[in-house]
C-alpha cells in the first residue's frame, strides 16, 4: 500500500524522495531518505517525516498518458510524482473509482485501436478528399458573391498582363468579328480578350473572362476551331472550375496542417508536393468535364467534332498541350523524342488528360451519326 516517488513543495524547486502511504483511511505522504542522503547520513533513524496528510477526495490525480510519471496534487502547490503508473491505478481503484481518462489511455496503448484509428483516419481523409472536398468546393463556389469573383479574376488578369502578356497584334476588326461570332454560341455573356503570350493557349477566369493568345488564333485554320476551344473554356466557366480549385487548395492546406499538427516550414513545403499531385488529378477531371461540355455544345449547334480534334492535334504538334510552359522553339525538333518518353512517367503530372485520348473521343464522335 505504498507508492514510491518524489515530493515537490511547489514553493521551492526542492525534490524529496517520498512515499505515498494509503494503508490507512487517510492518504499519508512520508519523506524517506534517498540513496544520496543515506550515504552521508549515518544515523538514519528519524528520516521518515510526515509531509502531508489528507483525504483521498482532496487529491487531484493526473490522467495516465503513455508511460510518463503521474502527478498527484494535494491542496496548494504540493505535489507527489511517481513513475509507478500501476500503483496509482491501484490506489484509484481501491477508492472505488475508475482511473480517470482510463478510456483514453486504453485507446492509446492498444495496437488494435491504433490500427483502427489509422484506418478511420485514412478512410475519412481519403473519402473527404475524394468526395467531400469537391462537394464543399462546388457548394462554396456557387455561393461566392459575384463581387469577389470579379475581384479575383481582375486581379489575376492584372498579374498576367504585367508579367506574362503583351498587347495583342490582332487587328481590332478581326477581334470584334471573333467576339461577335463566338458570343452567339454561348449562354453566358463572356468577356473575350486577346493577348500576345509567346505560345498558343487559351484560358478562362471565374468571372467569365476568356483569353486567347495571338498564337492560338494564328494556329487555327478555321474559325470553328477557335469556337471549339472557346466552348471548352466556357465549360470551365459554367462549371466554376477556377473557383473550385482555389477553394479546394485552401481546404487541402488546412487538412495538411491538421494531419501533421505543428509542422515546420521545410517539411511543409516538401509535403505540399503530394497535394499538388492530387490537385492536378482534380484539374484533369475538370478538363474532361469541359471537353464534354464542348462536345455536347458542338453537337447541339451542328459543328463538326473534328474541328476540336484538328486544333488539338496541331497544338500537340507544337508540343504545348495548351497549358504548358513556353518551349524553346530551336530545340524542339531534337527534343520531341525525349518529350514523348518523359510524358510517360510524368503522365500524372500533366494537367490535361492524355491529349491523344481527348482527340480520339472527338474523332470517334464525328464518325457516329446522331
Amino acid at each position: 500500500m505504498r507508492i514510491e516517488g518524489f515530493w515537490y513543495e511547489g514553493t521551492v524547486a526542492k525534490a524529496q524522495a517520498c512515499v505515498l502511504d494509503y494503508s490507512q483511511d487517510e492518504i499519508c505522504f512520508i519523506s524517506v531518505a534517498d540513496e544520496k542522503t543515506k550515504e552521508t547520513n549515518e544515523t538514519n533513524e528519524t528520516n521518515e517525516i510526515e509531509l502531508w496528510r489528507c483525504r483521498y477526495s482532496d487529491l487531484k490525480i493526473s490522467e495516465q498518458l503513455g508511460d510518463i510519471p503521474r502527478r498527484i496534487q494535494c491542496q496548494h502547490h504540493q505535489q507527489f510524482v511517481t513513475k509507478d503508473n500501476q500503483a496509482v491505478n491501484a490506489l484509484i481503484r481501491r477508492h472505488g473509482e475508475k482511473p480517470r481518462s482510463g478510456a483514453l489511455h486504453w485507446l492509446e496503448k492498444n495496437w488494435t485501436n491504433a490500427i483502427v484509428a489509422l484506418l478511420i483516419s485514412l478512410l475519412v481523409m481519403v473519402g473527404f478528399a475524394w468526395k467531400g472536398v469537391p462537394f464543399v468546393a462546388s457548394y462554396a463556389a456557387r455561393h461566392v458573391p459575384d463581387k469577389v469573383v470579379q475581384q479575383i479574376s481582375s486581379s489575376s488578369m492584372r498579374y498576367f498582363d504585367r508579367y506574362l502578356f503583351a498587347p495583342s497584334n490582332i487587328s481590332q476588326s478581326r477581334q470584334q468579328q471573333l467576339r461577335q461570332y463566338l458570343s452567339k454560341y454561348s449562354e453566358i455573356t463572356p468577356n473575350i480578350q486577346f493577348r500576345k503570350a509567346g505560345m498558343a493557349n487559351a484560358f478562362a477566369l471565374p468571372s467569365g473572362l476568356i483569353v486567347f493568345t495571338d498564337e492560338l488564333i494564328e494556329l487555327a485554320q478555321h474559325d470553328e476551331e477557335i469556337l471549339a476551344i472557346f466552348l471548352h473554356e466556357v465549360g470551365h466557366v459554367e462549371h466554376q472550375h477556377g473557383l473550385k480549385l482555389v477553394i479546394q487548395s485552401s481546404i487541402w492546406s488546412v487538412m495538411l496542417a491538421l494531419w501533421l499538427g505543428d509542422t515546420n516550414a521545410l517539411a511543409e513545403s516538401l509535403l505540399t508536393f503530394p497535394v499538388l499531385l492530387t490537385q492536378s488529378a482534380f484539374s484533369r477531371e475538370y478538363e474532361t468535364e469541359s471537353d464534354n461540355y464542348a462536345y455536347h455544345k458542338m453537337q447541339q449547334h451542328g459543328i463538326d467534332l473534328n474541328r476540336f480534334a484538328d486544333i488539338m492535334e496541331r497544338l500537340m504538334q507544337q508540343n504545348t498541350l495548351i497549358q504548358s510552359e513556353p518551349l524553346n522553339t530551336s530545340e524542339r525538333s531534337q527534343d520531341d523524342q525525349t518529350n514523348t518518353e518523359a510524358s510517360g512517367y510524368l503522365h500524372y503530372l500533366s494537367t490535361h488528360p492524355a491529349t491523344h485520348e481527348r482527340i480520339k473521343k472527338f474523332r470517334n464522335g464525328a464518325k457516329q451519326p446522331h
Partner: protein
Amino acid sequence: MTNDDKRVAPSLTPAASPYPNLIDPEVAQEETMHSKIDLNASTVDDQNHHYEFAFTGTGSEYFKIWIVNLALTIITLTLYHPWAKVRNKRYFYGNTWLNGHNFEYDAQPWKIFKGRLIALALLISYVLVSTFVPVLEGVFFIILVVAFPYVLFMSLRFNARYSSYRGIRFGFKGDYWYVLWYFAVYPFLAIFTFGLLFPHVWYKQKQYLVSQHNFGQKSFALNAKLSQFYVLGTLLLLFAIVGFGFVFYYLFKYGLPASGRFETSFAVVLVYFVLFLLFTLYWQRMYNLVYGQSVIANLRLQANMTYIGYMAIMFKNIVLILLTLGLYYPWAKIHIAKYKAQVTQIYGGDLEQFVAVRSEEKSALGDQVGDVFDLDVAI
C-alpha cells in the same frame, strides 16, 4: 520585480526550507545574472554541478497516442483538437528529464478551445467585413496586424505558464509593445536594409524571448553575442549563393526545359535540397545559440548540436515521412526530441535554489485573457 518578491515564500510543511540561504530571495536578488558569487559558502561544490537532459519517449508508443488523437480529432470535426494537442504536448514534456525529474505541461484544453472560438469569430467577421463592406477591409487588416503580436505574446505566456519542473512553473513576462516592435515593426523595417539588419533582428528577438522567460522567480538571460548572429547570417548567405548558383548554372547549361522533362524535375529536387541545407543550418545554429548560451541564476545551458548530426536526422525524417505518406511523423518527432536532449546540458549551481512566483502576483485579468491563445512559438 515587485516588492512581493522580497517576501519569503511561506513554508507550508516542516520540510519546506532545507537550504534557507539558497531560497531567500533577498540574498538571491543581490547576485546578478553572470556573477560567480557562491551563494552557499559552505558547499563550494555547488558551482560545479553537471545536469544531463534525457528523453524517454518511444516512437511506437507515441505513434499510438498520435494516431488515436488524430482519429478523434477527425471524427469530431476538429473540435477535439485542443485535447489532442495538450496530450501530445504532455507526452513530450513528461518524457523530457533533467537530473532525474521530468517536465510537466498541464494546460487545460477548454481554455485553448475558447481561444479557438475567438480566433474563428475574428476570421468569420473578417471574411464578412471584407465581402460586404470592402471599405472597412483596410481597417480590419490594420487590426489584424496589431492583434498578431498580442496573440503571439499571449501564446508565449500561455505555454510558459503551464510548463513546470520540480513543481515550479515557468513564466513569460513580456510586454505587448516590445513584442509588436521586435516581431512586427522592426523586422519589417529591416527589409529595407536589404537584409543587412536581419541578424540583428534575430539577435534582438532571441534575446527578448529568452530574457522574458523565467523559472520561478529567476529570469533567463542570453549570453550569445551579436557577432555570432552575423556569422550565421554570412554563412547562410554563402550557402545560398553557392547552392542557388549551382542550380542556375545547371539550368543555363540545359536551357529552360519544358515541364515534364527529367532535367526540370532534377532542378526542382536541387532547389529543395539547397533549401534543406539552408534551413537545417539555420535551425542547428540557432539551437546552439539559444539553448547553448542561455543562463539562469548561476546555471548555464550548453548545447552541442552538430550540423552533420542534425542534418542526418532531418534528412532521414523527411525522406521517411514522404515515403510513408506522413505515417513516420511520430518517430521523426521522437528522434528529434531524443537528439536535442542528448546534446543539451546544464552546468553550474544547484537546481534546488529556485523559488516559485507567488500566485497572488498574477493579476486575475491577465490570467483569464492570457489563457486563451496557444500558438506554437519556437524559441
